[in-house]
């Protein structure tokens, strides 16, 4: 990948040797045999002096080093691939250059593991000396990386992790707000997606709604955001919240409980395989005949919709994008994507990667490739605006979170027999995420 990784590998080889030296003691203790030849490994530990790294001189002509942390293994591997594809598509379209500098993109695996991601971040910052970072799918991992990113004053363009706290400011000494002036998010927050849904459901779908959501931070946060506007608009929550653990494959335990609430609709927060299984089993257990599904758009996103098929039909969801969004930028994006990546369906994650790459390029162009003055660079990111597949892209300067137009969508069958999220409306104004916790 990067040409630096070679040197780094050498470091680690030495490191392993150095550690090897530690072993010598007990071995010798254990065997108490002549020990003459064993000084060698101990000697290698010390003189790995080679590593005097000269400070990077920031010349506009030097390559711009972009680090990314995205999942390529474990459960979110598909999302990592989508985001990477979207980024590749945009970077290719500008010949991998911005502001006169080539973009040297160093990829690390998020692996759905905070410890591995923290190691990757350390490597990117301390070893590769990146100028900027992007990616991060899992909100929990994002919260783990937030402190070191903020400490390192690392400009960050987050392309998924949607937990509300990331761009919120803590007031009155509240420790929970994780806003950082260096961290931007170009994807969404859970508030932006689920808050506009509540009132709309109460008015247009039903005032008797049950709740079923993945039991983890992002799921319960989304439920709260939905409830706030739903009850304010006169809706009633039926029964207790039903919260299956994240990663549930068999929802058969929960489906009879949902049926027992006698609600007319169920707000459902699931994504990935959970969403696929939930929607299919909801139909298999006959609930679809009496209840409508409403939820955050990930429930029926294109990564799971083909597997859900007719089971997803008529589900109402909100999201900041859809394949059916009829604007020229989106049409071109989807056509280009299909041509470049024929084996991978375009989805909202690919769109976020595409936009993240564009934000990075636009900001670099704005400062003409000169990243030496960090406040200028951050200002340039904050000011980026362009025509995105989702509509006009613009950051909220108070929170560094994207301001999203939210679309109301319903799953319908298209002309070719497949299923898609048809757009049936949108929020009157674009949605800003609140500034404070």
């Amino acid at each position, binding site marked *: 990948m990067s040409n630096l990784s070679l040197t780094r590998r050498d470091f680690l080889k030495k490191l392993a040797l150095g550690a090897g030296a530690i072993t010598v003691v007990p071995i010798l203790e254990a065997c108490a045999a002549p020990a003459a030849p064993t000084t060698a490994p101990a000697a290698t530990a010390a003189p790995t002096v080679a590593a005097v790294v000269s400070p990077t001189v920031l010349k506009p002509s030097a390559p711009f080093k972009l680090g990314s942390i995205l999942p*390529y*293994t*474990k*459960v979110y*591997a*598909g999302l990592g*691939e989508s985001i990477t594809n979207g980024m590749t598509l945009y970077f290719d379209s500008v010949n991998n250059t911005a502001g006169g500098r080539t973009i040297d993109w160093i990829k690390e695996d998020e692996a759905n593991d905070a410890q591995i991601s923290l190691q990757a971040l350390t490597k990117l910052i301390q070893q590769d000396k990146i100028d900027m970072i992007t990616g991060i799918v899992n909100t929990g991992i994002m919260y783990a990386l937030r402190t070191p990113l903020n400490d390192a004053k690392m400009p960050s363009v987050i392309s998924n992790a949607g937990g509300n706290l990331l761009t919120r400011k803590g007031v009155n000494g509240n420790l929970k707000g994780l806003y950082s002036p260096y961290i931007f998010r170009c994807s969404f927050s859970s508030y932006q997606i689920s808050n506009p849904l509540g009132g709309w459901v109460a008015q247009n779908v039903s005032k008797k709604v049950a709740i079923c959501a993945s*039991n983890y931070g992002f799921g319960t946060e989304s439920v709260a955001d939905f409830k706030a506007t739903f009850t304010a608009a006169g809706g009633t929550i039926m029964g*207790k919240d*039903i*919260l*299956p*653990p994240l*990663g*549930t*494959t*068999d929802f*058969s*335990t*929960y489906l*009879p*409980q949902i*049926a*027992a609430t*006698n609600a007319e609709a169920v707000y459902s927060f699931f994504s*990935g*395989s959970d969403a*696929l*299984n939930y929607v*299919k*089993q909801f139909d*298999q*257990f*006959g*609930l679809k*005949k009496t209840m409508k599904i409403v939820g955050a758009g990930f429930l029926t996103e294109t*990564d*799971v919709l*083909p*597997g*859900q*098929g007719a089971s997803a039909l008529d589900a109402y969801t909100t999201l900041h994008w859809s394949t059916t969004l009829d604007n020229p930028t989106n049409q071109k994006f989807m056509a280009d994507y299909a041509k470049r990546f024929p*084996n*991978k369906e375009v989805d909202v994650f690919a769109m976020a990667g595409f936009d993240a790459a564009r934000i990075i390029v636009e900001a670099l162009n704005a400062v003409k490739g000169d990243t030496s003055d960090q406040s200028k660079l951050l200002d340039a990111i904050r000011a980026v605006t362009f025509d995105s597949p989702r509509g006009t892209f613009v950051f909220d300067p108070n929170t560094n979170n994207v301001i999203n137009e939210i679309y109301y969508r319903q799953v319908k069958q298209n002309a070719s027999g497949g299923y898609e999220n048809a757009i049936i409306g949108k929020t009157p104004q674009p949605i800003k995420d609140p500034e404070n916790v």
Partner: protein
Amino acid sequence: MGRPVRSPLPRIPMLNLTPDFLLIQLLNGLSSGVLLFLISAGLSIIFGMMDVINLAHGSFYMLGAYFGLTILRVTQSFWLALILAPLLVALLGLAGERFLLRPLKGRGHLDQVLLTFGVALVLADLVLAVPGWGGTVRALPAPPELAGSIPIGKGQYPVYRLFAIGVGLLLALILGLIITRTQIGAIVRAGVADAEMASGLGINISLVFSLVFAVGAALAAFGGVMTAPIVSLQPGMDADTLIRALIVVVVGGLGTLRGAFWGSLLIGEVDNFGRALLPDYALFSIYVIMAVVLLLRPAGLFGRKT
């Protein structure tokens, strides 16, 4: 709404404990239990007979499902997938036993753990690397003739799950008969009791080991194909299933088919009702049951006392 039942325990959500509701929940527990049996049966016998902790057993389950997916795509037949995928995995199991496990004979559990963990890592990554398999979550639809639901009380129940229960119980019965009534079953039982003595009786024990290992792998793969229409395929399915199967094996007792069977049903039902009754601790209930069983009966429900 039916009358909510007052419960003496705190934090239990008010559920509609109608007979319908209970019946459906019982069936849910039963369907996941019998499917779990297919995976844990092989694990338990292999453990009891060969003294092998096979952490790659979940990978057999996963590979079965993904082979099934490909066979279904090519042949459009779920039934062919259900037959061919286990055969392919059985061959893989044979090779693994012959070339990886057998050379480790007499080396202790820690080496087996490291070896089979390494194999599981490689296989999980293989699934991600094969185009059309990993990365994205995949659905394997039930055969059209079993796709619908039938009414049970006021609710509906998917036909496929009833079919899965039937197949699982039938297989359990067949396996039980083989173990208790046939000569090969007698050899396996002798092997579990004392492998050295069995070989002393002139039985080609390493051939029996190979066969048992292959059958165990095939059963897990069969379970993978059977489960796929219910829960879909995704990276990580191997590890989750392995842990559940290990729990079944120790709860039932190492090396007993009966233990694997009743252990599977127990874990299936406990997991299901645990999720319904103590939703906050859904991840927790099967571990509590395992701990309780082990503290009361340290060798599992049907295990021999050591």
